[in-house]
């Protein structure tokens, strides 16, 4: 998510006049963007998933405008990647029309941004969106007065019902910028006076840049280095430090405080009424879904629906049809015959259609098995996002993840991991700190079985008493908590604060969800499928060079003596690295023909669940976390998997099970 920044930068440089939508998260920017461009963008309730900047085209006044939808921001002094992207767009020199979207009932937070835009010296139009919701809460705003105060045009809109949006085009014309005086503490004002003469001419006012620099905005470093010599930069840093000396609080905090004071001052003149949300089914459900007691049954229902759609419909029904019927009967046989005819070279044939072939294994796997699972997951994920349930899920699970040094946001990649760990590793991007991402990546690789593997594992437990399944769950879950806890203490870095905005629960817009799901599937095909192909290719080489057989021979003593399993299991474990479910399937075959007793089944399943992830996941780990970390994580997992397997074996033998 956010992979197309390079193409965006290209578009940013195009000379066409721009319309830039800006605003807090969840104010309806994307719906307005869709209205203006007639094209959908990724709309999202979950902080972190709108890292992309969508852009489209709008025709008005006989001209064509490029419309850009920026990530939601709470401040233009960046505190997050999203805010940085948005601020950087404003910093780009170009002829543009800014449209600020405000959620009317949250006008206080919206005006905090308006003030910053005014300070930057940028002309803009304000849309007071969700006007209806504010009205039903008894909030009244004197628009004329506010417009006069800010010196910008203000429109009332209800974007979801397209009310008031037609006036946006009328306002796309050049206008002088206006200003509003904000007084910061004396020492800060002095700092501004000292910094402004040092700054180059820029799109944004020098005063606003000076404020950003005073608050220690590190994201400006690149811009500074591009525009100023080193000695001036260090001079600015010196001024900043000298100014900070006057205060115990950070300058950024004081600046925000002064701005909020100004906002409150403005609002006291133009706003009346501060109402309760009217009672409605969605607000009732919204409260219920967070309730300390009722929230949990709702959570279970949501997880159950997720399981039914992803685990049953996606992983069983769809996979069965796609793999066995579509690929197995209709596509592969003619393709195999074709290749055998036109490619008479055996090695190439095997490369494409052999047991480790690109077509027979990699593509079948990526398209027939993972795609339906991931597709179903994206659909559910999109519904959760659009309805506003996602942050609630994080709230409900926060305290569990807290124990692992994470917070509730980590629930998302973990749930996705039950679908496909490779994809889940990729979505750790939604977490805020590198530390959080590393812990989740580790836990995913360690103990979250993907749906393909889970299917086979559950199938094997089906033949055993329930006790064994419960024991397996207990061991794996316990280990995840313990490892998470230890990892959070060992891995350096900052734990992220759990500060999460909870939007109201809404009925999702189906068209929005569909477009979002399709965009993500496209992303999966582009980013993950190549890794499956690479993994299969390496497996093919290992197989051809007989390294696979050698590894099998080398690992056998470990399997037989430590784990007390038959030598044949080694093969299943090695294959498991390349394809998790194949590994489990190998065990399944062995247990079917009676080579494994219940005790051995449990030991082997615990070990293979914990054992190294599949090769595609390993590559994804290397891609997201770096090769060094990927190896480190593997180095933790392998001994741990065999160690725990060995301990389980010992304990079971001791109790004579």
């Amino acid at each position: 998510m956010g992979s197309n920044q390079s193409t965006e930068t290209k578009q940013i440089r195009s000379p066409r006049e721009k319309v830039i939508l800006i605003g807090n998260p969840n104010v309806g920017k994307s719906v307005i963007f869709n209205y203006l461009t007639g094209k959908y963008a990724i709309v999202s309730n979950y902080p972190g998933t709108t890292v992309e900047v969508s852009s489209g085209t709008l025709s008005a006044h006989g001209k064509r405008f490029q419309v850009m939808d920026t990530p939601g921001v709470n401040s233009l002094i960046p505190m997050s990647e999203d805010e940085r992207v948005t601020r950087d767009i404003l910093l780009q020199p170009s002829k543009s029309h800014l449209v600020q979207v405000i959620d009317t009932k949250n006008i206080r937070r919206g005006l905090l941004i308006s003030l910053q835009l005014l300070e930057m010296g940028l002309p803009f139009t304000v849309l007071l969106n969700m006007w209806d919701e504010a009205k039903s809460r008894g909030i009244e705003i004197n628009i004329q007065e506010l417009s006069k105060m800010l010196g910008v045009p203000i429109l009332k809109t209800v974007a979801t019902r397209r009310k008031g949006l037609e006036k946006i085009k009328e306002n796309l014309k050049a206008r002088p910028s206006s200003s509003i005086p904000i007084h910061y503490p004396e020492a800060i004002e002095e700092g501004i006076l000292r910094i402004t003469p040092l700054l180059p001419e820029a799109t944004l006012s020098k005063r606003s840049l000076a404020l950003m620099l005073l608050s220690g905005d590190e994201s400006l470093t690149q811009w500074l280095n591009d525009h100023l010599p080193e000695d001036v930069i260090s001079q600015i840093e010196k001024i900043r430090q000298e100014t900070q000396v006057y205060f115990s609080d950070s300058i950024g905090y004081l600046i925000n405080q002064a701005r909020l004071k100004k906002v409150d001052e403005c609002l006291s003149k133009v706003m009346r009424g501060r109402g309760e949300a009217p009672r409605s089914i969605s607000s009732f459900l919204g409260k219920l879904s967070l309730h300390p007691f009722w929230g949990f049954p709702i959570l279970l229902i949501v997880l159950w629906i997720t399981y039914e759609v992803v685990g049953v419909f996606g992983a069983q029904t769809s996979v069965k049809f796609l793999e066995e019927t579509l690929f197995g009967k209709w596509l592969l046989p003619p393709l195999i015959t074709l290749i055998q005819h036109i490619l008479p070279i055996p090695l190439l044939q095997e490369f494409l259609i052999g047991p480790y072939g690109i077509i027979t294994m990699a593509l079948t796997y990526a398209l027939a098995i993972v795609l339906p699972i991931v597709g179903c997951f994206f659909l559910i994920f999109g519904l959760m996002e659009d309805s506003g349930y996602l942050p609630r899920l994080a709230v409900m699970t926060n305290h569990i993840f807290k124990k692992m040094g994470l917070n509730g946001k980590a629930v998302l990649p973990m749930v996705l991991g039950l679908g496909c760990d490779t994809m889940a590793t990729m979505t750790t991007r939604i977490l805020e700190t590198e530390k959080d991402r590393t812990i989740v990546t580790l836990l995913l690789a360690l103990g979250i079985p993907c749906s393909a593997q889970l299917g086979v594992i559950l199938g094997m437990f089906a033949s055993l008493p329930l006790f064994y399944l419960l024991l397996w769950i207990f061991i794996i879950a316990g280990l995840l908590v313990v490892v998470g806890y230890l990892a959070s203490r060992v891995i350096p870095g900052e734990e992220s604060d759990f500060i999460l905005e909870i939007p109201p629960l809404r009925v999702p817009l189906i068209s929005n969800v569909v477009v979002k799901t399709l965009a993500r599937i496209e992303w999966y095909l582009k980013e993950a499928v190549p890794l499956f192909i690479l993994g299969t290719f390496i497996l093919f080489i290992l197989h051809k060079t007989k390294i696979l057989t050698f590894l099998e021979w080398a690992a056998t003593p470990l399997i037989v003596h430590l784990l007390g399993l038959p030598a044949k299991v080694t093969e299943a474990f090695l294959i498991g690295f390349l394809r998790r479910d194949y590994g489990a399937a190998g065990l399944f075959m062995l247990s079917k023909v009676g080579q494994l007793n219940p005790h051995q089944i449990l030991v082997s399943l615990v070990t293979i669940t914990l054992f190294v992830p599949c090769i595609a996941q390993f590559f994804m780990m290397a891609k997201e976390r770096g090769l060094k970390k990927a190896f480190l994580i593997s180095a933790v997992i392998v001994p741990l998997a065999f160690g725990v397997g060995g301990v389980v074996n010992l304990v079971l033998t001791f109790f004579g099970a």
Partner: protein
Amino acid sequence: MNRGSDLIKGPHRRRWGPQKEVEEDRVEELLELIWTLREKGVFDLDRLLETTSDIEAKSILRWMIRDDLFEMEGNRVILKERGEEKAREIIRRHRLTERLLHEIFEMSEEEVEEEACKLEHILSPTVTDSVCTFLGHPPTCIHGKPIPRGECCTKFKKEIKPLVIPLDELGLSEEGRIVFIAPKSHQRLDRLSTLGIVPGSVLRMHQKSPSFVLQIGETMLALDKEIVRNIYVKKV
């Protein structure tokens, strides 16, 4: 009190004479000890002498008896009215200081103990009552022992209304105006401020479990307990 030092005999007199404050502090320490031992049900003079770190305890105690602070019943130490009053005050100052340092300044228990022992001797009654009110007239110290009530507490006897409480103690669907935010990190403070969480803003407690959910304006926010604990509010 000069009368008291005149009564002290022996080699220490010279040193105590001009430094009255030192003597006062030592008397207070002993009163404090008598009080805390009494809380444990110990009245025994020998135990008192064993526990005290003041090597000259005996002579000071003798002086204290003469000063009408306590009396002896056999081997039992019984505070008299004046002594009781003084002990109450010193205990109150000590335990309130502990809470202030521990909760507001987040000092460790050892640091707290050391500082509280110094501060207990210098706080004036007015400052003590202000601290008590600021902390919301807490009934117990950080170790769970009772804090003797003061004048300021009885004023609120009917309804003990704390002035400033940590946000996590705000009741469900109650509203509080932020008084200050104890900064854990500058970055966190900056981030909270962009969401409108600054001193002066009004927050409403929506729920406390499984996570804290607060409402500010029309925005609902979920926050960690550590963050919530560092925000201090006044009920509105």
